[in-house]
């Protein structure tokens, strides 16, 4: 007869201790955290620590080792390691959030200082780098034109490649293309700029212009558009295609009027994300356009500014007014990207195929 069965008076706690070993109470992490924060606050208040950052690091370390030590005494090595690892993993996430918040905070705080209505309607023409004022109209127009042109070129090609991979893609050619699409996502943006410069500007005499910049952005957009469109086309149910074939619709008509409309919301989302990604590219623009301080509507000729190169130019000037203009430009650029991101989510939600 086992002791468990003979003695009927065993409590649940004792049973758990018997089966799983002794555990720390549920409130243990909170208690340790409270203690760690209190101690580091005390030390900061007394003046033993330099500032908030050091206090936070100390509190973190106290929590990490304090909880592990307590756990080691009560629960043993394995659970102590588990708690130690859990703390580190939670910390990793916080470590990623800190720079994101810090960057957004800086951009919003410093950007708002220069963000007045005139900032959107003025150019930098006749504004000295030491003077205040000036605006981003020329850069905003340039970015919108260049990105729009890049989208017009990249989307049809990218979607066609995705159609080839999904609808016709069997065999060596398709797998090679698929592999190099993946590899192309890793091509540095400056190399895309170098390629347009050597391939089109040096070799075929294309002018350094907004259009050349658009072509460089096309190189960077293409793989993203292909990959996202491919994922979306794969989600279209096979039944839809087969129903269409059964009605005698040729394959290409099936693709254009059944498959593409079904996948359209996903493709639009992917395109918007690709646009958001290239809108902030600076390096390719530096190689393929000339900087200017004035408004130039003509995408195909003459120097044309863009938001990223505007920011670069203002940082390079290095004076206080120009650096705050750079922050203003950064805020507008972030807003531009954020609108595209949020738009992409909305498009995905509104136009998602109704699945019931």
């Amino acid at each position, binding site marked *: 007869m086992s002791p468990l069965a003979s003695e009927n008076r065993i409590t649940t706690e004792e049973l758990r201790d018997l089966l799983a070993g002794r555990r720390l109470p549920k409130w243990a992490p909170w208690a340790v955290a409270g203690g760690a924060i209190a101690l580091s606050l005390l030390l900061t208040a007394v003046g033993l620590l330099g500032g908030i950052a050091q206090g936070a690091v100390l509190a973190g370390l106290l929590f990490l080792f304090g909880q592990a030590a307590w756990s080691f005494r009560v629960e043993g090595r394995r659970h102590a390691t588990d708690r130690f690892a859990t703390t580190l*993993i939670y910390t990793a996430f916080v470590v990623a959030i800190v720079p994101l918040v810090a960057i957004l905070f800086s951009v919003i705080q410093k950007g708002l200082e220069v963000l007045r209505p005139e900032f959107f309607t003025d150019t930098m023409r006749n504004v000295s780098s030491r003077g205040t004022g000036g605006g981003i109209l020329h850069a905003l127009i340039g970015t919108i034109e260049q990105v729009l042109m890049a989208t017009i070129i990249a989307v049809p090609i990218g979607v066609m490649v995705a159609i080839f991979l999904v609808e016709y893609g069997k065999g060596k050619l398709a797998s090679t*293309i698929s592999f*190099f699409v993946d590899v192309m*996502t890793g091509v540095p943006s400056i190399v895309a700029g170098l390629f347009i410069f*050597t391939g089109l500007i040096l070799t075929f005499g294309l002018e350094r212009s907004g259009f050349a910049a658009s072509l460089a952005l096309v190189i960077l957009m293409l793989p993203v558009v292909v990959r996202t469109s491919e994922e979306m086309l794969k989600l279209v149910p096979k039944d839809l295609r087969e129903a269409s074939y059964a009605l005698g619709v040729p394959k*290409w008509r099936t693709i254009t009027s059944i498959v593409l409309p079904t996948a359209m919301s996903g493709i639009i989302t992917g395109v918007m994300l690709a646009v958001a990604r290239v809108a902030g590219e*600076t390096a390719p623009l530096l190689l393929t356009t000339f900087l200017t301080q004035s408004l130039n509507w003509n995408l195909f000729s003459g120097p044309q500014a863009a938001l990223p190169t505007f920011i670069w130019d203002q940082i390079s000037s290095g004076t206080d007014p120009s650096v705050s203009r750079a922050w203003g430009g950064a805020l507008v650029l972030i807003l531009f990207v954020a609108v595209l991101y949020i738009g992409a989510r909305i498009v995905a939600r509104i136009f998602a195929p109704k699945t019931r």
Partner: protein
Amino acid sequence: MSQQTITKPDPVEIRGSSVRRGDRVFFNLSRGAGILMLAITGAIGVFLAWKAIPSLQSDSANFFTEQQWFPDAVPPVFGIAALAFGTVVTALVAMVLAVPVAIGIALFISHYANRRVASTLGFIVDLLAAVPSIIFGLWGLSVLMPNMQGFVAWIVKYFGWIPLFANPEQVYTKSILIAGVVLAIMILPTISAVTREVFLQVPQGHIEASLALGATRWEMVRMVVFPFGKPGMVSAAMLGLGRALGETIAVALILSAVFEINWQITEPGGNTFAANIALKWNEAGPNGLSALIASGLVLFIITLVVNMIARLIVARRKEYSGANS
């Protein structure tokens, strides 16, 4: 009209030329687009190599071992030794900092965080990838660098006896270390997104079996998730490395563009392929441009190789592809 639909269709008409021509045109269009993708990849290498030749022929120093960069001098003296060193070391610093954190983030989102908030948390980390690199550069230069000085000084004070951290001049700005920190932040979302996808594919049965045998959560991660996700983790790290090697603007703003190999990573200095191209582009003469293109070709080949290795590792598991992250 109804008359015609009832009549038995003529077999010749089904295989009629209009239908088949439409199909053939569409097929060729889509295949042509695919081949264009391959052609672009190839053309990048070909054009860069072609336009790099004149400067390589003019170089009076060894292109691979020379540290200085005077391509427009007479005779031209330039080489990529310092650039290659700076590129690799900044990327390595970034990797050392980013990979453990990124794996932690991926674990947090895939196996630690509450299921309902996990996807939102993932989206927040992905937002970091949406911040343009020029903004990372601006932030790194005017916010992070002044705020990191105290920390770097602390490292130098207590770890300065390690040659890597020695800094006799006691100037702590514009260093490879700071550039590495900014790069680490930039590649975090890339690495964690791919790793997270792999971790989410660990079979639920393995996880539950491990927990049922009494493993703690960390033991489950170590014995089930890591072995399963290892190829994915390696390739995610390689993708991050590729991005770190090719990053231009943020690095160009932070480093102080010195053409010499200096192992002391807390001192001002360092230079990378990409940053050098951006900084020297507008002041370069014809031979200077060609020399920059030659260095860009080296960068292209390095990143191509790194990316191809990463993709080949995951090619065994197609779903790992992180291109759409």
